[in-house]
């Protein structure tokens, strides 16, 4: 019977709005945390624990230049198993289709760690037995004259396995489809569709020439001790163009992007946890406030405190099971959706879902539920049967310590979950602070809007009273709703604007094709070829060199430590020379000079390195050392899709050094086939179709922001549940007030209008506040992150207040219950007795 009572009680009580809000909070919280946790963990796992497999080795030496003989000797001496990889970006061609790919030329053994997984593709010529779709680790490398290519390559080039594609001067047959492979390379290279070929076939393609952007890698593998010794021995010998990665400590693969993703997931998780805990706590508080009579009665019938505790715990447990299991399952499902969406961006195959991380989210929700439950339900044990005799509704005295302990314990849980107290503290404080400010502003807006209604509506005095009574809840609701709407809006518009505005800002003649790796002997014919086609273009020589000194002083002493972090001092720069300022650059300071050893430098570099006219910069190209005197400073539009340079020399200084040429031009829609023709005429050129790159970037941004939107949408739902919970907090007070108004002569319509007006004001204020916050945030993001011209979003100012009003009014009306006149009398009577 006690079980029956517990079950019956559960059934009726979960039918109550606060019971439902509690279930909904647990459900959404487990769902979101499962999604965020699994996604975060698998991203990290795929990067950290499998980094050796991903790097394809225990140690990788990355070099921007071919290895010197000394290095080759050193590598031999290391005693480790080694292999060399040459990786470069190149356009490949099949029929009329072109694609920018990342090509690896490799030798056996390859890779040294992990394995390449390939698949035999569907092919008309294969027999049925060969036609099964199996994946298998491949033992060898592509046969000579063939390549292995990722499915994307085949899709984009509209070809099948067994078909051929063109790389430079050579034609290759696609032998297998690449499912996954370690050693994808670093940076953007790793995102491009991948192709693997044998290094013996590389020379014939004639794709590589001096000045080509190539990564030369040496992979090492062997006993840990030996690897560590080699690493220690090599590190001090590294040149500026060389990097050493150890599987133990480095995850070269786009670490920044993934770090950002992980931070985003953590922030979302924290937000979800804060919202969820708050909703759980408030709904339990509301729930327990209504349990005093029942508790007193059960105690008068002989229920001991222990039994009472068991009864409520059983109820919480049942509620948790009811909400956390479906929540976890949905979270798992959504995680798979996200992983499927992000699929091609992540190294495959992904590590399996960890049981512990799958369980951690429902356990976390359970722990928060129990902590909040203790704080709200334990005081019920102090209820006195006396309250039934006196008919008072005074709540049992609660332990103040419990109220302080709850947020502290929840915070510790959250810190444990995000694995950093500092991060949890920092994020919690900033979120709470932003929410608090937003809440205050919303409250102020409601007040102002209400004042403007003073002479316009009859309900004004009542509305003013209501707003005064509800102000603390308005602050909370306003803060939460505004923050959520702001986050959603910023994500939506930043994504929309980023590509649209970027493309929109470009003048009509902006180049859409980039060509690099034009060899000196091809310069004349390429220029001629473009001119014949009526395509205007300028070819710039490009020489790679490093800055070595300033006014005769070495970098180490001439610049401050902060300045020494500047890109220009840490990598090889693309240098060029010419007798006049490029037409798309603007002269900012000084005069363009064709005197011997005059140089022109880019404005931001001059500012950040405190360079002024007259300074003398020393350079090194290969073994050659030379210097130049700054005679002018130029403004450069980096997003103009034209060849841009930090440093331009006057003629006569670097003309004799080996250079390749670079150019960019615009191809109209009528000239679509021109780029394919150009590559056919000059197969070793590297042509980059900017439109295609933009499309690829757009695809990447869409995939990432779709996943982020899904997470935000779920967070918004949690926020709405919190709003519902807060609306219910003083439902009794509201109902009492409505009952009083009804018995004093207000019609049902009037009391409804009063509620509606409150919700309208609230929604409108949140919407307007969210607009203000979103525009400010977008302004900052555009100015400092995306470097775009900030825009005013009229659409935002129309839709957001409308949306917020609609959201709030609907939510409010859903929780509102109409009160009849007799019911009003009863309510007042019972409250008075």
């Amino acid at each position, binding site marked *: *019977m*006690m079980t*029956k*009572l517990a079950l*019956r*009680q559960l*059934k*009726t009580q979960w039918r109550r709005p606060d019971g439902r809000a509690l279930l909904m909070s647990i459900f959404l919280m487990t769902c979101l945390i499962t999604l965020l946790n699994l996604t975060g963990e698998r991203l990290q796992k795929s990067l950290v624990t499998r980094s050796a497999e991903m790097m394809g080795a225990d140690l990788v030496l990355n070099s921007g230049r071919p290895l010197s003989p000394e290095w080759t000797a050193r590598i031999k001496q290391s005693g480790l198993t080694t292999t060399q990889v040459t990786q470069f970006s190149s356009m490949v061609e099949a029929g009329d289709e072109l694609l920018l790919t990342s090509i690896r030329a490799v030798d056996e053994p390859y890779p040294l760690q992990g394995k390449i997984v390939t698949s035999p593709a569907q092919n008309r010529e294969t027999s049925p037995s060969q036609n099964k779709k199996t994946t298998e680790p491949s033992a060898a490398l592509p046969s000579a004259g063939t390549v292995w290519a990722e499915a994307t390559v085949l899709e984009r080039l509209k070809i099948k396995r067994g078909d051929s594609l063109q790389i430079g001067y050579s034609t290759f047959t696609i032998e297998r489809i690449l499912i996954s492979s370690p050693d994808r390379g670093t940076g953007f290279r790793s995102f491009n569709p991948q192709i693997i070929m044998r290094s013996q076939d590389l020379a014939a393609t004639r794709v590589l020439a001096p000045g080509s952007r190539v990564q030369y890698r040496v992979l090492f593998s062997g006993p840990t001790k030996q690897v560590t010794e080699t690493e220690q021995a090599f590190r001090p010998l590294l040149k500026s163009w060389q990097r050493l990665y150890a599987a133990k400590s480095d995850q070269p693969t786009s670490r920044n992007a993934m770090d950002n993703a992980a931070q985003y997931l953590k922030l979302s998780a924290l937000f979800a946890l804060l919202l969820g805990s708050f909703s759980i706590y408030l709904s339990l508080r509301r729930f327990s406030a209504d349990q005093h*009579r*029942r508790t007193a*009665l*059960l*105690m*008068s*019938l*002989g*229920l*001991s*405190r*222990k*039994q009472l505790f068991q009864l409520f715990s059983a109820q919480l447990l049942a509620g948790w099971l009811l909400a956390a299991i479906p929540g976890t399952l949905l979270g798992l499902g959504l995680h798979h959706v996200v992983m499927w969406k992000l699929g091609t961006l992540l190294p495959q195959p992904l590590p399996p879902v960890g049981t512990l991380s799958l369980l951690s989210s429902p356990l976390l929700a359970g722990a928060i539920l129990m902590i909040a439950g203790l704080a709200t339900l334990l005081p019920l044990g102090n209820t*006195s*049967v*006396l309250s*039934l*005799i*006196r*008919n008072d509704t005074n709540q049992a005295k609660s332990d103040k310590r419990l109220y302080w302990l709850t947020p502290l314990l929840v915070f510790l849980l959250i810190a444990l979950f995000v694995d950093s107290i500092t991060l949890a503290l920092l994020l919690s404080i900033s979120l709470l602070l932003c929410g608090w400010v937003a809440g205050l502003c919303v409250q102020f807006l409601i007040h102002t809007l209400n004042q403007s209604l003073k002479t316009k509506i009859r309900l004004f005095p009542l509305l003013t009273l209501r707003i005064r009574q509800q102000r603390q809840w308005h602050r909370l609701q306003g803060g939460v709703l505004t923050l959520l709407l702001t986050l959603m809006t910023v994500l939506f518009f930043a994504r929309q604007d980023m590509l649209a505005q970027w493309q929109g800002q470009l003048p009509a003649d902006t180049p859409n094709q980039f060509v690099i790796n034009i060899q000196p002997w091809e310069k004349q014919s390429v220029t001629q070829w473009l001119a014949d086609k009526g395509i205007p273009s300028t070819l710039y020589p490009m020489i790679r060199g490093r800055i070595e000194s300033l006014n005769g002083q070495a970098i180490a002493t001439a610049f401050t430590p902060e300045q020494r972090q500047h890109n220009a001092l840490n990598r090889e720069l693309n240098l060029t020379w010419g007798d006049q300022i490029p037409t798309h650059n603007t002269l900012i300071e000084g005069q363009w000079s064709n005197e011997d050893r005059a140089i022109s430098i880019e404005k931001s570099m001059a500012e950040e390195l405190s360079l002024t006219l007259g300074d003398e910069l020393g350079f090194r190209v290969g073994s050659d050392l030379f210097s130049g005197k700054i005679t002018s400073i130029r403004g450069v539009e980096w997003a103009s899709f034209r060849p841009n340079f930090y440093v331009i020399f006057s003629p006569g200084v670097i003309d004799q050094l080996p250079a390749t040429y670079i150019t960019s031009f615009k191809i109209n829609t009528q000239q679509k086939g021109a780029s394919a023709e150009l590559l056919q005429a000059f197969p070793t050129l590297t042509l980059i179709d900017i439109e295609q790159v933009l499309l690829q970037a757009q695809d990447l941004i869409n995939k990432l922001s779709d996943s982020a939107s899904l997470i935000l949408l779920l967070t918004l739902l949690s926020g709405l549940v919190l709003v519902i919970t807060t609306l219910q907090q003083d439902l009794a007070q509201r109902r009492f007030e409505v009952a009083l108004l009804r018995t004093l002569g207000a019609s049902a319509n009037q009391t409804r209008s009063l509620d509606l007006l409150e919700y309208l004001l609230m929604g409108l204020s949140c919407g307007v506040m969210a607009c203000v916050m979103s525009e400010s945030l977008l302004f900052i993001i555009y100015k400092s992150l995306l470097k775009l011209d900030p825009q005013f979003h009229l659409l935002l100012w129309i839709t957001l207040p409308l949306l917020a009003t609609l959201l709030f009014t609907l939510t409010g009306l859903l929780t509102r219950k109409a009160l009849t006149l007799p019911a009003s009398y009863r309510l007042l009577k019972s409250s008075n*007795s």
Partner: protein
Amino acid sequence: MFDQTSFAIEAHHLAKTFSTQAGIIRLFNDLSLTIRQGESVAIIGQSGAGKSTLLSLLAGLDTPSSGSVKLSGIDLNQLNDTARAAWRAAHLSFIFQSFHLLPELTALENVRLPLDIRGDKQAEQLAARLLEQVGLASRQTHYPAQLSGGEQQRVAIARAFVTQPAILFADEPTGNLDADTGENIITQLFELNAQQTTTLVLITHDSALAARCDRQFRLEQGILNEGLLS
């Protein structure tokens, strides 16, 4: 467990004071009362006279500022919380003005609830018998919402007697009912009381109802006088 005493309730020199912002309010001072086992006693008084407070002291729900209360020879204030709750569950019952039935349980389930709490295997039969005695045999499976006010109070009475309590405290049991229904309820209450020889402490402001008890006390300005007239 019981002392060999013929008194169900012995209250000696009870005092109850409350401290408020305005100062200390003395509700009563040096109040004594003894009630024999099986006796029915009515306590009447004006609203605010302290009747309910006296009842809560007598039932061991509240502690006096000074003085002592013994129920069947036991001073409840000497017991710890758990023991006191257990003793109350075993020997006391209450009937409230607002019935206080659990809405999600049927009439029968509401009556058997106190037996279920103590794990009585006969719960079902005992509860059904009590419901029959209060004339609700045909309403066993009805929920409180389907019962009239009078019927709900009869369910509450059945629930109070089902555990065969030594002492029954009734706080304005007819306060929420009309005169006729109230009369019926009271008749049933006294019948059951006589059958079970329960000690009955009845709080009321109705002199006619009080007159049906063996003894009557009037609580006025902190003093308890025996007799109906002040």
